């Protein structure tokens, strides 16, 4: 995983609550067996006027000009500003994959669905939780000044903007450590191989039926 430290980029506003993972990446694109290439279909049903299918050349598809990501100033956005319960619904990791593949590196929202939140960290995408008041302020700022940059400093857990705007944010220390060091979590867990061996022996003694081979 790539290391995360400073994210400095344009903020795109997606002014909706409860954005579900079906909206982030519709099911027809989940047929892919790869981790990449989902960016062109991010928010597919909102972004295009036709029905998207895997393998289509998206550069020729009719765009919904109203949709935020189709506005010129947001085409290269790196920070997504949205509202509460972002990423609810299905557990599909294709949702963070699509967001990253589009070019986003961080999300600002007042809350996230648990599975989505977890999935972001496995892929080096930083989901930041801010209070509803601050999120509202940022939406208002973006209305006044549509081309708006923020700089996120992960190490110091601070967000900086123009005119001395500074917003601190909270983050779990283990997750921060993994992001900053670009750590492979499986590799970390494998370091505890002995603890897992010991646990497994004890567990098997207590609950032998859990270790029956499934012969299908």
């Amino acid at each position, binding site marked *: 995983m790539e290391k995360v430290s400073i994210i400095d980029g344009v903020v795109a506003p997606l002014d909706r609550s409860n954005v579900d993972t079906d909206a982030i990446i519709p099911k027809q694109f989940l047929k892919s067996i790869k981790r990449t290439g989902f960016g062109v279909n991010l928010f597919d049903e909102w972004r295009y006027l036709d029905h998207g299918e895997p393998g289509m050349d998206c550069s020729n598809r009719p765009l919904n000009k109203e949709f935020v990501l189709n506005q010129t100033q947001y085409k290269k956005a790196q920070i997504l500003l949205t509202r*509460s319960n972002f990423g609810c619904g299905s557990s599909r990791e294709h949702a963070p994959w699509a967001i990253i593949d589009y070019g986003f590196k961080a999300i600002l929202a007042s809350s996230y669905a648990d599975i989505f939140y977890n999935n972001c960290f496995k892929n080096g995408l930083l989901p930041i939780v801010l209070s509803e008041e601050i999120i509202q302020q940022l939406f208002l700022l973006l209305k006044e000044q549509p081309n708006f940059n923020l700089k996120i400093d992960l190490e110091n857990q601070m967000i900086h903007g123009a005119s001395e705007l500074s917003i601190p944010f909270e983050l779990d220390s283990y997750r921060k450590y993994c992001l900053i060091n670009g750590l492979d979590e499986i590799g970390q*867990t494998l370091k505890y191989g002995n603890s897992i061996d010991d646990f497994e022996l004890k567990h098997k003694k207590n609950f032998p039926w859990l270790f029956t081979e499934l012969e299908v």
Partner: protein
Amino acid sequence: MQGKTLYDKLWNIHLVRSDENGSDLLYIDRQLIHEVTSPQAFAGLKMNQRHPRRPSASLAVADHNIPTKDREKGIDNPISALQIQTLEENCKEFKIPYISMEDHRQGIVHVIGPEQGATLPGMTIVCGDSHTATHGALGALAFGIGTSEVEHVLATQCLVQKKMKNMLIRVDGKLQEWVTAKDVVLTIIAKIGTAGGTGYTIEFAGEAISDMSVEERMTVCNMAIEAGARAGLIAVDQKTINYMKDKPFAPKRDDWESAEVFWETLKSDADALFDKTITFNANDIQPQVTWGTSPELSINIYDKIPKRNPEYSNALTYMGLSEDTSISDYLLDKIFIGSCTNSRIEDLRDAAKVVQGKTIADTIKLAMVVPGSGLVKEQAELEGLDKIFIAAGFEWRDPGCSMCLAMNADRLDDGERCASTSNRNFEGRQGQGGRTHLVSPVMAAAAAINGHFVDIRETN
């Protein structure tokens, strides 16, 4: 000493180690695998030259992309076919138990897990699918994970997790006739909201929950995720134990005796402390219909659709509904009885009771029943339920996820309105532009006969 919740107990039994930063390493007893969220996990293993720690702790089946008719012709869509073929090849390479599309036990992963006894009380169970919460009905800690975590569990049989908070939802008293587990869970979601359970594991308890069959409890736990909770739980009782008996992979002989003793401990202590408790009166719960594009936007069948306000405006427009009208004023195009929420034998029996001797309305373009597994289908056919559905004008299909998420050929066309026993009514979920109303199997069956929603209590 303070008593423990069922969640606390399940957590402690599976705790491998704790870190000073508050994250725990949790042992996973069973991983269920399907074709959509696993290919990248297997690719990750291969890339890093890793192997599954315990291949036979997993069980794999294809369900999302599977056709529900003319299966012998194979899968039309080459991308779907490749995804299923990839699952087959990965299972073969890594020696993971796999139930193939041709096997009569094939079905929706959350239906076949309990049905085969592959998921058991007291287990930790994960799957790259948010509806893994279903298995909590057996008194197991079961939750959905992403693909990176699928890979993590394959490689280590463990997951790094932070413990959630404990929430208790009590449903006291008796349900009215024709009011089902689906109405209970939709009512709960409408009350607490789709983020109400975020950060919590929800234990469901109370007389109405105890009165439910194990299958009905699965319907409730299945939709815990629609209330934001990754896991739902229900204490083990004699019904749970009876349900597990004679399941193919359930413990046998001496193991059964020991398992039974252990399973009986799987309940919250009387003095256990919950971070939050919410109580419902079962008798107040009415048949539900969702009107909006989030599972929390649900009303009693006889209530009016809410007034247009900024919060509801998008949903009303998308759903093609006018404020202050009755949901029964709108004609339906399609009926879907199926999904991991409501495709078990009891669901089909309930729906068949409603349609028996009747025919679906002329205005219904398609009404389909998609059993949750091959075994559910066989049992239904043994009882003659297939004949009742077919005589009424329903299509009787082969098992799979089908129109719950429309990854196969079963879907809504733009603007079509559907009564669906599934779990999500998000925009486009059942097909781009499709309009989904979530209901119980009996409400879907009655809607098929009438062509629009009706209060099941008044027509039966």
